[in-house]
């Protein structure tokens, strides 16, 4: 059992070590400016370690991983960002999450090419994020 745990934790550590941009975005929208602006904002925030940005039609989905000591204020950071983005892009449905699950799934999602399927999965994620227990 210990061997399995060790292997798993090693894998996890390695998985987190890959070199990637701080903000990765995936957009299926005409408004490229919006996307770039949000990317810039996310990059400027020191509390964020990494973030995924998905812009599909009117959906605006941000999944982020906070720096360890910023996690204390997770709820507040999420709310602040949601408010910030809603003010800026009033027409969009904004979702912000600092949950590991959201980050993990959105990273996988960005490799998906089929737009319909992607939207479906995104809705499933949004539903999951609302679950309390």
């Amino acid at each position: 059992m210990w061997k399995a745990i060790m292997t798993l934790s090693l894998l996890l550590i390695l998985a987190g070590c890959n070199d990637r941009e701080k903000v990765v975005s995936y957009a299926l929208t005409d408004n490229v400016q919006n996307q770039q602006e949000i990317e810039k904002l996310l990059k400027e925030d020191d509390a964020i370690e990494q973030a995924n940005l998905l812009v599909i039609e009117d959906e605006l989905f941000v999944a982020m991983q906070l720096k360890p000591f910023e996690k204390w204020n997770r709820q507040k950071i999420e709310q602040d960002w949601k408010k910030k983005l809603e003010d800026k892009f009033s027409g969009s449905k904004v979702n912000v999450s600092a949950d590991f699950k959201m980050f993990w799934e959105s990273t996988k999602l960005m490799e998906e090419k089929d737009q319909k399927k992607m939207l479906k999965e995104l809705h499933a994620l949004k539903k999951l994020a609302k679950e309390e227990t």
Partner: protein
Amino acid sequence: MKEQQYNSLKDQITPKTPLAINCLKAFAVGGLICCVGQAISFFYMMFFDFTEKTVGNPTVATMVFLAMLLTGFGQYRKLGQFAGAGSAVPVTGFGNAVVSAAIEGKTEGLVLGVGSNMFKLAGSVILFGVVSAFFVTLIKLILVSVGVAAW
């Protein structure tokens, strides 16, 4: 020999509790158990539909399951002797308390033995958990009602 005299003699001869070593062991083993829990959490989040908010329940249940196996095979007792609070404070310790009492009650049957012995050790944890939940909520509700605090 007077009682006081005797007790000072007894204290002199009785070996002292190795506090530093006990604390170190408790810290290390307790930390490791939490790391196992963290690995299980990641497992559930990566392969099942659990978020950081909801992963606590399946993780705790899995840890209790592991505690059951270790208790049943007589390993948790040894871990407990080594780690002290390091294995007692995590939920696995709670699981061990319930499971060991349940196993022991087996000879008196499922109702009189297992059923009524199960919470011999762990019952107080549930009692104080529920009672303190009630009073904390009550106090908070009063504070919110008079406007001193917010939810």
